[in-house]
């Protein structure tokens, strides 16, 4: 669905769009419960759940103790037996405390039990750097979870998709991990009213172009689009693909674009080595699209270090628009 064509679309922030999706889910499905730390009267560390507790009460908008492993496990057990929990991690970094339940239980139960069960669990992870919260509150760990068969991993970049992917996750019979970028919470965009879903596993072409393909995730989509504007003024037409889902990855959209442009730049905030861009690159390199490449694939990712506190260092260790411009110009050289 395209929000532009929808008469009842309104401008909402990314956080408001997520809240609206949860509101619709709570309203329409009694099996839905929200769980997380300080999601009740506090409204969530990033004010995403907001006032929902006042509408649905503490039985459905549950503040958990500070118990990530236990809380995640309770959500797994509840999903296994008939509830539809939406579990909020206060920061995605704290998923590290709950990896056992996410990776060994939620992801594998269906397989280990020979298909006898499924785990319709939704987890939300406020992710990314840019808030000055340093190494244990700023990571982009989507690749950790995307490495695990049994999980689906999405990274919405717009308010419309943040809502649509959350509603799609709730309809999905398997565990869906949603990485929300903290810096995007206040960003605005048109969001259709009512219930709709954004398909999991489908990338979106945000800008069409012929000279190079930029595959970006999350906040990097916006940086790539900003770079694409500047590039266009220089006569370089970049095609910007918002990957949206990291697992399962939309192979066809990426390969078709690379076949057309012959050049691939991957931009993602997670650590470059073994990150999402590594998988995108390998997918292209292993496919027939490889024959269409006119230049080596380029990846821009997070530096090989934790996120530093100092604001200038913090900016320097993740891709920024000037770096994307340099990489795109170098890549497109010979094309223009």
């Amino acid at each position, binding site marked *: 669905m395209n929000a532009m064509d929808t008469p009842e679309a309104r401008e909402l922030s990314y956080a408001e769009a997520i809240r609206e999706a949860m509101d619709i889910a709570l309203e329409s499905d009694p099996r839905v419960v929200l769980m997380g*730390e*300080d999601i*009740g*009267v*506090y*409204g969530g*560390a990033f004010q995403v759940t907001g006032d929902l507790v006042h509408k649905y009460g503490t039985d459905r908008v549950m*503040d*958990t*103790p*500070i*118990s*990530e*492993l*236990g809380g995640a496990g309770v959500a797994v057990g509840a999903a296994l037996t008939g509830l539809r929990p939406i579990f909020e991690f206060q920061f995605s*970094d*704290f998923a590290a*405390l709950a990896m056992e339940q996410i990776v060994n239980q939620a992801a594998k139960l269906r397989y280990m039990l020979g298909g006898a069960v499924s785990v319709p669990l939704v987890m939300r992870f406020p992710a990314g750097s840019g*808030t*000055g*919260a*340093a*190494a*244990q*509150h700023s990571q982009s760990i989507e690749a950790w979870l995307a490495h695990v068969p049994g999980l689906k991993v999405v990274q919405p970049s717009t308010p419309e998709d943040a809502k649509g992917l959350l509603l799609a996750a709730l309809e999905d019979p398997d565990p869906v991990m949603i990485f929300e970028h903290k810096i995007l919470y206040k960003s605005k965009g048109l969001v259709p009213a009512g219930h709709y879903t954004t398909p999991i596993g489908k990338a979106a072409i945000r800008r069409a172009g012929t000279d190079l393909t930029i595959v970006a995730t999350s906040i990097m989509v916006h940086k790539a689009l900003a770079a694409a504007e500047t590039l266009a003024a220089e006569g370089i037409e970049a095609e910007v693909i918002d990957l949206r889902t990291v697992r399962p990855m939309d192979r066809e959209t990426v390969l078709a674009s690379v076949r057309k442009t012959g050049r691939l730049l991957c931009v993602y905030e997670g650590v470059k080595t073994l990150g999402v861009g590594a998988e995108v690159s390998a997918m292209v390199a292993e496919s027939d699209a490889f024959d269409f490449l006119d230049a080596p694939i380029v990846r821009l990712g997070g*530096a*090989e*270090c*934790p996120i*530093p*506190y*100092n*604001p*200038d*260092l913090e900016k*320097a*260790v993740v891709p920024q628009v000037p770096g994307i411009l340099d990489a795109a110009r170098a890549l497109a050289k010979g094309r223009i």
Partner: protein
Amino acid sequence: MPDTANSDTNLPYALRAYSREDLVGALRKMFLIRKFEEGAEDSYTRGLIHGTMHLSIGQEASAVGSCMSLTDADKITSTHRGHGHCVAKNADLGRMFAEFFGKETGYCRGRGGSMHIADVEKGNLGANGIVGGGLPIAVGAALTAKRLGTGAVTICFFGDGANNEGAFHEALNMASVWKLPVVFVCENNKYGMSTSIERSTSVKNIADRAVAYSMPGVTVDGNDFSAVTEAVDAAVARARAGEGPSLVENLTYRWRGHSKSDRNRYRTKEEIAEWMERDPIRRMADLLVSHDILSEAEVGALEAETEQEIRDAIAFANQSPAPLIEDATRFVYTEEMA
């Protein structure tokens, strides 16, 4: 170290155990913590500090009282609300502010910020961004002390919220089974962020949990300096004597919000006002004045002196250089230090 400064058993413990110099030093540190936090808050408002911070105003007696019988050889692990612990363990205020301001002269060379300040030379193994993250680390430090026979004790600070993490339970169990020289000091300020202990915790007092790990557990008025030192000193002495771990719960209160984004929706103004009446610094000053250790005028002078120290520390931090961008990926692995 406690000495037998005064053996009159009617006196509060702290006055019996510590010299005038120690006691004045303790009040001074409590003032420094308060002024440090106020300076941090002010710097934040002026945009000098990036990110968030967790202030410990109202909890000064817990930090300073708990560390009274420690030496630089003893260790502590701290929390996200750790500025007071740093000061109690004799940190340099200029380097603390420099860390806040993201400067190369800061305790973490500007890489860590408020939530990661550590002062390894003074035995402070660091604050922690992860609730409960320090608990097993403290047990590890105590294991080292026992294996190497250093005689060092570790104090593990943590909040009431942290006692619901698995790490708390696993750490206390191992410390007990291996009889390690560690003191678990819970700073119970009634809330983990917005969640009260009544809503999150199955026991009334965190100290009740000590029973499950076969160690002594006591709950004290954490805003009463003397009560804190009495309980923690006894636990430290027990640990030093090889008798194993203890749990001490200091009941206290944070006057400010959890962090800068807190709108205080989960507690009342009356509750905050009531706890502000129980100001640990005022109570410590009253104790010293009423026992003729200091005059009111001397208390005032001490406070003014600490304000100046904070101003100097902020000036040092302001004038310090920022880290170099090209050094952003240093210190990930062990390397030659320049």
